[in-house]
């Protein structure tokens, strides 16, 4: 019996060593799946810089007992106004960030034109604000005073991967779909309603873990579309004809730790495995790696990690370098020492990056030229 245990320990140690040796290759299957010969590795192994309210704008209404700012989900900026959603009531709130006065509070819940059941995201364009209701398969367009303009019916929307998001350019909406066997996303022309699918499906329909099919989408004024994986330190850049320009891997000693996943009779808890198909009806939990928001501007990329350990939660900034992207810094936002500002949403309004979450009464704004 003792020998059996020793054998098992040696065997475990052997496979652990082999596993560690293959860490750098754990995403090779993604390269092959998407036909990419030369993915770019970006070394992000720099110290994380701690930033405090003296280093950024911090908007908070400290005089009022009833907070009128923050505690909201999603985030958009229109001139001096912040828009966000109070999730529990599905209230759309517009607050002037300079005077901290409420400019509008509306709830459009219902099944008619201009109405939603559940807000999955808010996205702004040049003159319009859009609300995505995945459950109702529609995109609703409002003006900046929140007057209804029109509803856009979508034929097929992914609802299970909740962090799989949409993006809008001047005339296209990019969104996740779930019934197509070959592709994960679709681009619909908002004028003539024609659509084209893109980004090959990785986990087949009916297989697990579908979280490897989830991407955060962001597009810049050059029509470069960025798809950032929710569960892997990877992002794709697509050109305006929806061809992959390249795949980038974020490489660090700490960002992608290998840890043991746990499996029992009813469930599998995945901490940080290589991406692969699991043929199982069990419940799948992801408790390790997580990117919760990502933004591409014309010259910079911002990716917010919210990983398993508090020390692994910070903003990663990249900057354009010719045709590629390089690391420029890692930033942690603190209210005071050992009190991390909790971030789940970001938005960009040149030159500012705004950060918030439903757990914070304040909203952060930082000049992106300083990152």
């Amino acid at each position, binding site marked *: 019996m003792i020998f059996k245990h020793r054998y098992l320990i040696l065997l475990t140690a052997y496979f652990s060593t082999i596993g560690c040796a293959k860490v750098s290759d754990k995403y090779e299957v993604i390269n092959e799946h998407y036909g990419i010969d030369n993915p770019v590795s970006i070394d992000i192994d720099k110290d994380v810089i701690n930033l405090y309210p003296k280093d950024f704008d911090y908007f908070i209404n400290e005089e009022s007992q009833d907070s009128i700012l923050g505690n909201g989900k999603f985030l958009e900026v229109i001139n001096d106004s912040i828009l966000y959603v109070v*999730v529990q009531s599905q209230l759309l709130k517009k607050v002037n960030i300079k005077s901290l006065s409420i400019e509008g509070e509306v709830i459009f819940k219902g099944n008619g034109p201009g109405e939603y059941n559940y807000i999955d995201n808010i996205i702004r364009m040049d003159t319009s604000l859009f609300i995505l209701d995945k459950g109702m398969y529609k995109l609703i367009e409002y003006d900046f005073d929140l007057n209804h303009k029109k509803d856009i019916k979508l034929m097929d929307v992914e*609802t299970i991967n909740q962090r799989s998001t949409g993006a809008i350019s001047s005339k296209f909406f990019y969104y996740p779909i779930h019934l197509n066997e070959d592709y994960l996303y679709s681009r619909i022309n908002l004028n003539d309603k024609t659509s084209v699918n893109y980004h090959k499906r990785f986990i087949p329909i*009916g297989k*697990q873990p579908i979280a490897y099919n989830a991407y955060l989408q962001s597009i810049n004024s050059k029509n470069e579309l960025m798809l950032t994986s929710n569960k892997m330190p990877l992002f794709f850049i697509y050109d305006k004809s929806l061809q992959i320009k390249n795949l980038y891997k974020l490489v660090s000693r700490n960002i992608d730790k290998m840890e043991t996943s746990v499996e029992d009779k009813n469930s599998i808890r995945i901490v940080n495995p290589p991406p692969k198909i699991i043929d199982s009806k069990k*419940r799948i*939990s992801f408790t390790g790696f*997580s990117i919760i928001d990502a933004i591409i501007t014309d010259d910079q990329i911002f990716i917010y990690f919210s990983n*398993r350990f508090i020390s692994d*939660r910070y903003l990663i900034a990249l900057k354009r370098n010719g045709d590629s992207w390089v690391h420029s810094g890692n930033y942690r936002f603190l209210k005071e020492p050992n009190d991390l500002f909790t971030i789940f949403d970001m938005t960009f309004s040149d030159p500012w990056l705004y950060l918030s979450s439903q757990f914070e009464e304040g909203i952060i704004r930082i000049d992106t030229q300083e990152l």
Partner: protein
Amino acid sequence: MKKLIISLPIFLLIFATPINTYAQADCTTECRHYATGCDVTFRQTIISWSFTMTCDDGFHGDDFGSGQYTGTICGGVTPCSVQTSL
């Protein structure tokens, strides 16, 4: 540090007490589990279900399963579910 320790078994703490849920309608359920400081968004479709969990310390996790979810969330909230047959 306390939150860090709490984050690890959060899924086990939040999704407990299996019960049978009556299929009603296509829906999303949102609730807060005050004991852990986490918001849970539950979604049920005809073929599968998912949770997304966000916590006040910044932890984020996801949970997926096939078929109808049978259990409570947020320490006692029964989520609605999709009707699979009439």
